[in-house]
């Protein structure tokens, strides 16, 4: 069985799964239950400035019956008295010395206020501090949270205030609500951060009630943006993680990254690890199903590591980072086509309609005799036997651009595979091509000549 333990900037935990700073880590009693369930660590719900909360606070996105595909929250940082939180933090750390207990903090932009909170957190015996630069609502209006995270200069300055007084690791949590996340990331590095974590929640309005016309959630009839999380944000989180992990300043500084944003299963977790996360934070999945999900998270991750011959979770961190590239470096001569396995195909023909209406019209329907037929039916024929004579989708590979839409919509696992085929062309990237033949990027006639020369046919 693979070793799941991690060392994150000196913070140790028996597995990489931490509960993110959020409602699941609101109190000592909750975190004790989470640790009893097996969580490797917890980032305490942000403590700091006094706040008042509103009701209600959450909005959820359902997609065709699947609940909580996304979760939007308008809850602020902890509304429990600072003293109570600090006392419970100390108690939890005393009871669970092997778990990572990290405290998220957010105070006014004043070096004395930060120095004070850092001292009080260190007095609890906590393993680290996470600076909440991401809270997108309620706190940002008061010059905290995202208001800091969105301005690299503030980000660097406050990080420096904290790192200059802290003796425990300082993690800077980045907001996704910026145009270029690598700039606050670099600012955090410059400010002396020991680690980064991302992503915080994304600005969102979850929906509008079609009967009352109120926004969801509605606070006495009024609504506002909140912070979006859950499975729907995972692709955005993976992108921002890959962007930060490949930022040279971050890479040079060797800062570990705590990845989060839509981690629901061990599969999601493994993807974050491969793209450079060392520890993983989870919130929405726990809010949907409870702390018990940790069992499959650790069990599944361990089995996956075993299946791939990895002895430790540390061995997979960042394995996919070297594959992060960009359009200019893609091989334009790499070619794949879709291939439909007729034995697995259930003839729902969703690939056919997707390709025909919205992609490249390269899937045909063939009747059982292999003759190309149009969709449609004979009005005078009926009965379940129609399923036997049903046409089968077949890819015209010569015309297939390999877009993979069909494979995406196919409801049967591994029925449509994208298969590499020789293009017959020499490898060339867009960057190379534009260096060698700049005319093709500016003149359609030149582009047409180039296509003809190398044998690229666009139908």
């Amino acid at each position, binding site marked *: 069985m693979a070793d799941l333990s991690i060392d994150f900037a000196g913070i140790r935990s028996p597995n990489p799964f931490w509960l993110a700073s959020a409602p699941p880590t609101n109190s000592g009693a909750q975190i004790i239950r989470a640790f009893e369930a097996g969580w490797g660590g917890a980032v305490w719900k942000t403590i700091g400035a006094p706040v008042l909360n509103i009701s209600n606070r959450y909005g959820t996105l359902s997609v065709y019956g699947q609940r909580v595909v996304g979760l939007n929250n308008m809850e602020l940082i902890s509304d429990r008295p600072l003293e109570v939180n600090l006392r419970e933090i100390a108690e939890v750390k005393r009871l669970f010395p092997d778990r990572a207990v990290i405290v998220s903090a957010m105070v006014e932009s004043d070096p004395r206020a930060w120095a004070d909170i850092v001292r009080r957190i260190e007095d609890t015996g906590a393993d680290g501090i996470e600076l909440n630069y991401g809270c997108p609502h309620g706190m940002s209006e008061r010059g905290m949270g995202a208001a800091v995270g969105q301005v690299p200069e503030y980000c660097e300055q406050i990080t420096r205030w904290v790192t200059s007084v802290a003796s425990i690791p300082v993690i800077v949590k980045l907001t996704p609500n910026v145009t270029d996340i690598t700039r606050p990331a670099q600012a955090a590095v410059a400010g002396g951060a020991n680690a980064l974590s991302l992503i915080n929640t994304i600005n969102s309005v979850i929906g509008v009630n079609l009967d009352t016309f109120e926004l969801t959630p509605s606070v006495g009839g009024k609504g506002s943006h909140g912070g979006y999380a859950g499975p729907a944000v995972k692709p955005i989180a993976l992108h921002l993680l890959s962007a930060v992990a490949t930022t040279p300043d971050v890479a040079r500084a060797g800062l570990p990254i705590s990845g989060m944003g839509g981690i629901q299963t061990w599969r999601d977790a493994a993807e974050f690890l491969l793209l450079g996360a060392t520890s993983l934070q989870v919130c929405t999945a726990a809010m949907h199903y409870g702390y018990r999900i940790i069992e499959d998270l650790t069990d599944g991750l361990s089995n996956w590591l075993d299946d791939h011959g990895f002895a430790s979770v540390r061995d997979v961190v960042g394995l996919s980072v070297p594959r992060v590239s960009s359009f200019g470096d893609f091989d334009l001569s790499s070619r794949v086509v879709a291939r439909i396995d007729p034995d697995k195909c*259930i003839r729902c023909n969703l690939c056919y309609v997707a390709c025909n209406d919205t992609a490249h019209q390269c899937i045909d329907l063939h009747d059982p005799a292999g003759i190309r037929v149009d969709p449609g039916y004979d009005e005078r024929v009926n009965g379940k036997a129609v399923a036997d004579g049903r046409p089968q989708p077949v890819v015209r590979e010569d015309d297939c651009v390999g877009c993979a839409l069909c494979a995406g919509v196919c409801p049967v696992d591994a029925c449509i595979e994208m298969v590499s085929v020789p293009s017959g062309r020499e490898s060339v990237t867009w960057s190379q091509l534009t260096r060698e033949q700049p005319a093709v990027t500016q003149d359609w006639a030149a582009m047409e000549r180039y296509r003809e020369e190398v044998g690229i046919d666009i139908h």
Partner: protein
Amino acid sequence: MDEPRRTAPLAELLPPMTEQEAAVEANRCLYCYDAPCLQACPTHIDIPTFIRKIATGNLRGSARTILESNFLGGTCARVCPVEELCEGACVLGKDHTPIQIGRLQRHAVDHVWQRDIEIFRKGEPTGRSVAVVGSGPAGISCAGELAKLGHDVTLYEKRELGGGLSTYGIIVLREPVEVAQRELRSLTRLGVEVRTNTEIRTRPDLQALLARHDAVFLAVGLGAVPAMGLVGEEHVTDGLSFIEASKLDPDHLHVGREVLVIGAGNTAVDAATIARRGADVTMVYRRGEDQMTAYRHEYEFALLEGIRYRFHTQPIRVLSEHGRVTGLECLRVELGGLDASGRPTPILVAGSEFVLPCDQVITAVGQEKPALAVELGLETEKGYIRVDDDLRTSAERVWAGGDCVRVRGSASTVMAVQDGKLAARAIHADLTANAPTTTITVTPSVTGEVNHG
């Protein structure tokens, strides 16, 4: 038999789906393109679309999608042999569980019924008039489609209640009486005049209809229940009458304690299912399990209900004492070569008489061909009314559909609905092609003819 008497109420067997249940099931549908369920449905309801509308919460739109293709969507949702049709063709059936299309359809149609919503309005009046004879599924379907197109429709029904087999012949466990009555209400709201207790019996009756209406659609169903030629047959309960009594007067339904049902078709299974609510029931069939005409799922349902089967058994005599049935004398049967229907010929084994004790014998061995066809002077085909692809009979301005023309295919509600729809389309085309014209003035020197086209 020591089993307690079953006293399960006579009510619809499948419960309605809850909103949540329907939403979960609707979301399981793949929304296939050019879907096989749509093709398999004899009325070609756009099933993926109506299910998607359930998933999006557009229940009224869902009902519209259903009812546009099938005016009797509420009935068909309950009585269709979905295992043989839409659900049997579902792509998820192969290695999974097909979508419960029938129950979802019922959910959508019930939604508008419970809110008393009418989906359709009578079309712009065409000034043409059609008589529909018989208010079973084919008749209701045809009348509904014609009214939507703006024709004046009069629906003639010989019995006291409209609905035909839906009202009188489908057991409550599948379709309560109210369902067909609700469909008839939709008809009357479309302006269809329903005349019950009015029978079309003779050629002059038909001529009278043709004199009053521009077209006639005959949906007269099948004929009488045939005699079996049993000795003591007067003590036998007719299966269709038994089912009818169970629907319309269940409190006075006579059910024995030890019931034999002769026959192995769907009506026989239905009658047995009703009897089983209070009795030990054995079905008696002269051929074997493989030759039963009942749908496989009906047979399996009967087994689950605890109904027993006695195959290769030919009844010959009903035994009785003082007018009370005491048993059924039968002969053993061996199966010989294939007959014209492709099934093995039953051969009676001489001297093999034996008696099955019972206190009630119910028969369900089919109905005779529609005798009315000959009476009305229509050409027939193997006893059924002969029609062309547009359901047109040999008589001018007369169309026919439903069981009375079912020389090919299976006699089922949904096939009758489709007949009614196709006939309505053909009648409409015919009537509008010869639309009455009052404003055309013609100069004789041009053609000398009035073109009503």
